């Protein structure tokens, strides 16, 4: 299939039928609107004429072209003369009339005549190839110009697009079954959380990642401050199998204490795994982290304990401080040598941030991670089971850590030695998840379940607002007292508010009104 060294001024603008068969590519009535075939049929005469013309254009390429006869024969001169006359007539008329002439002359012979009409001696046995007996009837492929078939509405059909996607899904499922992880294990995700403004943001992120995991999943959510409806309503949307437990302590305000409490909450979750004898791979999906899907695929490869590289995203104030360091995003995780053996750990170097890091949750300073974050580790759930044989001897018993003032910074404390950790993700070269901590002010408020309950039809701002920095006096009407009383006595949830009311009330919405509602409905942070 080579492109031909033809010249560009070929005038192949007439279709040609070279065989006597009735071709199927002819115009099929109403079906094809833009078929570009011309309705002219040519005789061999014109075919060869054109061929000869084209040949004369092809100049250098055709050094030894097979015996097309010399131009000197009388017939050739005759044709030349006719050609000249026709050109003159066309010039006068203003259009090429030759096609019309031929059409009318030969229209009778359209389908039947083998193309010998009007042959001159120089019509060098043209499509005499036309008829070896074994071929005509059988060959349906016609050489020459064909129409370009375009259907009336050349745009995608949504039903077919859906079918195609289903086919691709099926193919990909098969690929996963063949080349992906064999015998995938259940993923047990452990998430410590507590109710605060950014909880919805963080938890939704984790939830969506977990919903995309193609393996079986159990989501253990440990909530500080006890089980609440707020959290329950968020995780119920996931459709995953969840175990929602409460932890009696409330989440403290300083990062130091927070990290400690989170560690204890995770251990609590591990105890649940042990008690319920959940089988699978335990990943620590902190609710402010961002996970890539490959993380869960790599987690399937763990034998006992695995470590992945975690990218640490620091919310830092000054960007100028970063340029000293070559690496802009520090990475925590296993360090390997050239033979892919674990030789150490990349941990977070907090020296650069001493004195500048956040202490309290709402400090506007970079929040530092621990030396090694829990989320970078993946465990085989059988490690925490009691009374099961096959457990390696280097794992400490979970119960032994009970009661001791556990300052378990990282899961490495669960094991007697840290050399047994398997580096995952191409030996730690792939960063599979990212750690960051962003929280709102401690006293920030948010509408319960992030549903803005519309006020009553009559929305009256109160005389006083609880916000300390707002102007104390507000324009008031006669109905002030009644309004506020109604507000405060309103039941906490009004789920069935019609839309129209909300629209109307939107016009009157200002922050102060919301403030009034929120203070009655939201949970205190």
């Amino acid at each position: 299939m080579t492109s031909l060294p033809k010249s560009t001024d070929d005038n192949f603008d007439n279709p040609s039928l070279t065989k006597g068969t009735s071709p199927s590519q002819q115009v099929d009535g109403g079906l094809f609107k833009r078929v570009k075939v011309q309705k002219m049929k040519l005789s061999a005469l014109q075919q060869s004429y054109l061929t000869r013309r084209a040949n004369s254009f092809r100049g250098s390429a055709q050094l030894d072209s097979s015996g097309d006869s010399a131009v000197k024969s009388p017939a050739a001169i005759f044709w030349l003369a006719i050609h000249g006359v026709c050109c003159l007539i066309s010039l006068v008329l203003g259009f090429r009339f030759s096609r019309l002439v031929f059409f009318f002359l030969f229209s009778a012979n359209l389908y039947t005549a083998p193309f010998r009409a009007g042959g001159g001696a120089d019509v060098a046995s043209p499509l005499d190839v036309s008829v070896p007996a074994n071929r005509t009837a059988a060959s349906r492929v016609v050489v020459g110009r064909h129409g370009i078939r375009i259907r009336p509405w050349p745009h995608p059909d949504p039903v077919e697009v859906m079918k195609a996607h289903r086919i691709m899904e099926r193919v990909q499922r098969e690929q996963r079954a063949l080349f992906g992880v064999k015998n995938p294990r259940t993923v047990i995700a452990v998430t410590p959380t507590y109710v605060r403004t950014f909880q919805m943001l963080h938890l939704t992120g984790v939830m969506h990642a977990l919903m995309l995991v193609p393996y079986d999943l159990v989501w253990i959510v440990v909530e500080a401050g006890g089980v609440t409806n707020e959290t329950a309503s968020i995780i119920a949307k996931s459709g995953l199998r969840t175990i929602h437990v409460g932890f009696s302590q409330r989440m403290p305000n300083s990062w130091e204490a927070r990290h400690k409490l989170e560690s204890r909450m995770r251990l609590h979750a591990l105890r649940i795994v042990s008690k319920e004898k959940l089988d699978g791979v335990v990943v620590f999906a902190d609710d402010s982290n961002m996970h890539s899907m490959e993380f869960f695929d790599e987690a399937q490869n763990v034998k006992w304990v695995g470590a992945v590289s975690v990218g640490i995203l620091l919310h830092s104030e000054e960007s100028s401080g970063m340029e000293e360091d070559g690496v802009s995003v520090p990475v925590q995780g296993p360090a390997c040598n050239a033979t892919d053996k674990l030789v150490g750990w990349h941990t977070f170097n907090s020296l650069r941030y001493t004195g500048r890091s956040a202490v309290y949750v709402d400090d506007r300073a970079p929040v530092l991670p621990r030396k090694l974050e829990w989320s970078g580790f993946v465990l085989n759930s059988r490690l925490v089971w009691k009374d099961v044989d096959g457990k390696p001897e280097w794992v400490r018993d979970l119960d032994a850590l009970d009661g001791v003032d556990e300052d378990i910074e990282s899961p490495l404390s669960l094991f007697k030695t840290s050399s047994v950790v398997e580096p995952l993700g191409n030996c730690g070269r792939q960063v599979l998840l990212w750690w960051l901590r962003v929280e709102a002010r401690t006293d920030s408020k948010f509408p319960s379940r992030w549903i803005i309950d519309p006020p009553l039809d009559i929305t009256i701002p109160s005389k006083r607002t609880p916000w300390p920095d707002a102007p104390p006096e507000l324009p008031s009407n006669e109905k002030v007292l009644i309004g506020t009383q109604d507000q405060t006595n309103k039941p906490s949830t009004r789920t069935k508010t019609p839309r129209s009311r909300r629209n109307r009330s939107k016009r009157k919405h200002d922050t102060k009104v919301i403030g009034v509602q929120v203070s009655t409905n939201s949970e205190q942070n």
Partner: protein
Amino acid sequence: MDFWNVGFLVLLCAASVFSIGAVELGRHQPTERISGSAGDVLEDDPVGRLKVFVYELPSKYNKKILQKDPRCLTHMFAAEIFMHRFLLSSPVRTLNPEEADWFYTPVYTTCDLTPNGLPLPFKSPRMMRSAIQLISSNWPYWNRTEGADHFFVTPHDFGACFHYQEEKAIERGILPLLRRATLVQTFGQRNHVCLKEGSITIPPYAPPQKMHAHLIPDKTPRSIFVYFRGLFYDVGNDPEGGYYARGARAAVWENFKNNPLFDISTEHPTTYYEDMQRAVFCLCPLGWAPWSPRLVEAVIFGCIPVIIADDIVLPFADAIPWEEIGVFVDEKDVPQLDTILTSIPPEVILRKQRLLANPSMKQAMLFPQPAQPGDAFHQVLNGLARKLPHDRSVFLKPGEKVLNWTAGPVGDLKPW
């Protein structure tokens, strides 16, 4: 009775083991055995089944031509050169012509290249004729059968018709002197002048190392539905469309350029091979000739070939059941291509992918250097072996002449 129980158990185990024959589970992907109309012949070993004698032609027919233009080793017609090299060192070669079943004439007819790299076929008929004159005068074997037990490799666009333009090729027909010989060519179209009865169709040459260098992991999900890269309109030779590809490529473009399922364009990206491995279907429409290297690439990369070329004869058609492996779409049905492809049941698609994954299938499409068992060279030899033993009509009585040495256009008769 215990003995009988044990025996029965053993029989049961044996039966279950043997029944897993159809699907190999040892490798990564389960594949299916490929058996075409000639049977399960892809893995046959031709050694011992035939003997080939290679004529020693003066180097002006082969080596000198190659020296003049080494691009002949990498373009898609390179099969003729590699076939010669393979036969020279193959165990099927014999130095004794008396015991040979087949005779091979190493003449590189597709190596006269333009500056762009396209082969010019104008001298090829004369070169071939000159070579045949040489072998018929120096050895008695040509005259014995008038070439019926000789084979030639003619990988050009339209095979031994030696022209790139179809109308002219049809006009010329197969070179008269080759009318009795077996032709090994890439061109194949049913009921076409340039495909002789008994020819062996081979795939065009595609560089195996280059393709294998671009393999991506098997588990990369196939997320492109239909993939094609190439010309739709040959602007240089046929700007309006209608001649090139019989209008089929232009129809594909006009109908599906807006369709997100069809990743088609004329660009030539560097990730061409990688993209093919991420596609479920790869279009292989005809161009100026019905065959194309896309078929080879699609097979190597596991992408189901969608063949849009009426009446095409695909490589090794008797050994490979192409209808089960690829999807054939008539040129007149191109506007409904999306309907056709989406209406294929998923099980059929998965089965086609399994067949494509068969390593012997991929091997049969390649011309690796050095030759490996099961590759295209061996398939050619297998094809030749299947034509043995020669029919009695092959051998002519002394003095009997069938070929007309003066037939053909006048220009062909001039010496080369």
